[in-house]
């Protein structure tokens, strides 16, 4: 085995080792999920050298440099203020969702005007209009980390696969009986999953556009889905009050997470894939053990429906957004509430962490987005300007740009 080179993964922090064995190039990852600005680099370095045979004494200075670089990337100044960079008015009807590619130089917006648009983040220029759907474009995604493809899920029951550079339509995925409202690529980009109001989810081959299987079992609409990082498992959250865990390869249901007393609004895997969270109309968020299918913890505190839930990049914390106008940050391990984000004057429909995990953004029906410190719960900034409620928001991978999509037909870019 011979170490060829190091690759850095900033969020969540990790060092990827590219090495040669039997004339074959392979990779392995050292996850450093606990890395913070307070980490003692020498102690960590000792541990890595001790545990990882590929990293010999001579590599010590190099790895030390990499660790300092990673730590620098975890630091995010709270004092950074965002300013309105551009208002994009190209959609003629309300926006639905928005999403960045990993690089952050492009993002996409879906709309009631049946199109998805691809935008240049740096200039605010409209690069492409993906036209062809016969109804609302509701769910959209890039095949991150590659970013060369976009998928769009529509109320017209189809999902379309596009070239994000040229706008060329590769495939139209037909088979769902009603609206497609959630979708995702697996992290490898080879499989697409779609969830529909027809109570089923489907898996498709990205390259050929062929349906691989239909995940049957839910008795009501599927509104949220998430792959784990290795891409071999999928969870689907449904209005039937349950979330199901599926084996991607066989299409078999492994577990049904039961316990919520209301519709599921959102579900997500953590980075390591051992846990997942579900938010529900029943005002609680539940944390589940993927292996056993058991509920580990029920997070209470909201006085109204939970509309969105999200892990931070490492999975150490999670945040819940509610119709009660507040969001709550919890420690995943202990279930303790770290902070309560109070300040919105309307329900919060979307929430996410920045990649560093230091900040949280919330999108609300009060027409504003708030940026919060995830540690203290302090409101750091209010993004004002939209003239109707905000449906979606996202951070780029660097955490220095935010996009917001609104019912007012505009998308806004905010920069540091």
């Amino acid at each position, binding site marked *: 085995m011979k170490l060829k080179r190091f690759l850095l993964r900033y969020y969540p922090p990790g060092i990827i080792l590219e090495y040669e064995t039997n004339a074959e190039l392979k990779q392995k990852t050292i996850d450093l999920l606990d890395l913070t600005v307070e980490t003692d680099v020498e102690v960590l370095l000792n541990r890595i050298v001790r545990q990882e045979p590929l990293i010999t004494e001579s590599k010590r200075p190099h790895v030390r440099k990499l660790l300092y670089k990673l730590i620098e990337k975890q630091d995010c100044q709270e004092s950074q203020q965002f300013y309105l960079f551009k208002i994009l008015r190209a959609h*003629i*009807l*309300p926006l*639905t*969702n928005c999403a960045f590619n990993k690089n952050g130089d492009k993002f996409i917006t879906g709309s*009631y*005007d*049946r199109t998805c648009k691809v935008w240049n983040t740096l200039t605010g220029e409209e690069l492409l209009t993906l036209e062809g759907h016969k*109804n*609302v474009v*509701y769910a959209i995604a890039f095949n991150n980390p590659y970013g060369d493809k976009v998928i769009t899920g529509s*109320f017209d029951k189809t999902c379309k696969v596009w070239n994000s550079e040229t706008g060329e339509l590769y495939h139209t995925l037909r088979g769902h009986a009603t*609206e497609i*409202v959630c979708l995702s690529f697996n992290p490898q980009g080879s499989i697409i999953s779609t969830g529909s*109001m027809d109570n089923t989810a489907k898996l498709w081959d990205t390259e050929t556009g062929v349906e691989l299987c239909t995940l049957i079992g839910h008795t*009501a*609409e599927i*509104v949220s889905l998430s792959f784990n990082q290795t891409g071999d498992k999928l969870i689907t959250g449904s*209005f039937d009050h349950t979330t199901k865990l599926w084996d991607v390869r066989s299409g078999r249901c492994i577990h049904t997470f039961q316990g919520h007393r209301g*519709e599921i*609004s959102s579900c997500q895997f953590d980075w390591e894939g051992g846990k997942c969270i579900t938010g529900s109309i029943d005002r609680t968020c539940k944390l589940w053990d993927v292996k056993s299918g058991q509920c580990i913890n029920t997070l209470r505190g909201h006085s109204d429906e939970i*509309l*969105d839930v999200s892990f931070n990049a490492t999975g150490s914390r999670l945040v819940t957004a509610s119709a009660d106008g507040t969001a709550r940050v919890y420690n995943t391990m202990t279930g303790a509430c770290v902070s309560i984000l109070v300040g919105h004057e309307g*329900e919060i*429909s*979307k929430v996410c962490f920045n990649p560093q995990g230091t900040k949280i953004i919330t999108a609300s*029906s009060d027409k504003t987005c708030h940026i919060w410190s995830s540690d203290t719960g302090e409101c750091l900034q209010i993004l004002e300007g939209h003239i*109707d*409620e905000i*449906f*979606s928001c996202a951070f780029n991978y660097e955490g220095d740009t935010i996009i917001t999509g609104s*019912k*007012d*037909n505009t998308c806004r870019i905010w920069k540091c």
Partner: protein
Amino acid sequence: MGLLTLLRKLKKSEKEFRILVLGLDNAGKTTALKKLADEDITHTMPTQGFNIKSVIHEGFKLNVWDIGGQKTIRPYWRNYFDQTDALVFVIDCSDHRRMDETGVELNQLLDEEKLAGVPLLIFANKQDLMNAMGPDEVTEVLGLTNIRDRAWHIQPCSAKTGEGLQGGMEWLVKNINKS
């Protein structure tokens, strides 16, 4: 409201109805909707997208979708056709000049497959204005008596004062229940 609410309004329970409100721009759709929901109507702006309000009427929950009527966004009306229980078409009866345009749009809606057989309530709005055409005149100009494939009713009203709105809704609920 949020996107999730939009999804929850796509499905519906037994005692819920989905009402679609259409008509030319400035017909008074949003004002009528606000008035029905007992909201302030003084600052009503042209609708660029849509508004949804839930109105309880005689124990039934009416999810009313008010869709913008400007010419550029009329082609998108069909986004909202699925699962419609009743169509409300609002007409500005003082706008004589655009009565032809009104007729064209209404006839197109009546030809829509997804709206086949759906009960039609026509609000002959702006009766508070001096020059407003009365319901009989509108019926004649638009040839409404030719509609034979569904229940329909024309209701004179003023969205501004609220007069006639309740009467229209009563007809609507009665006729949804029949179908």
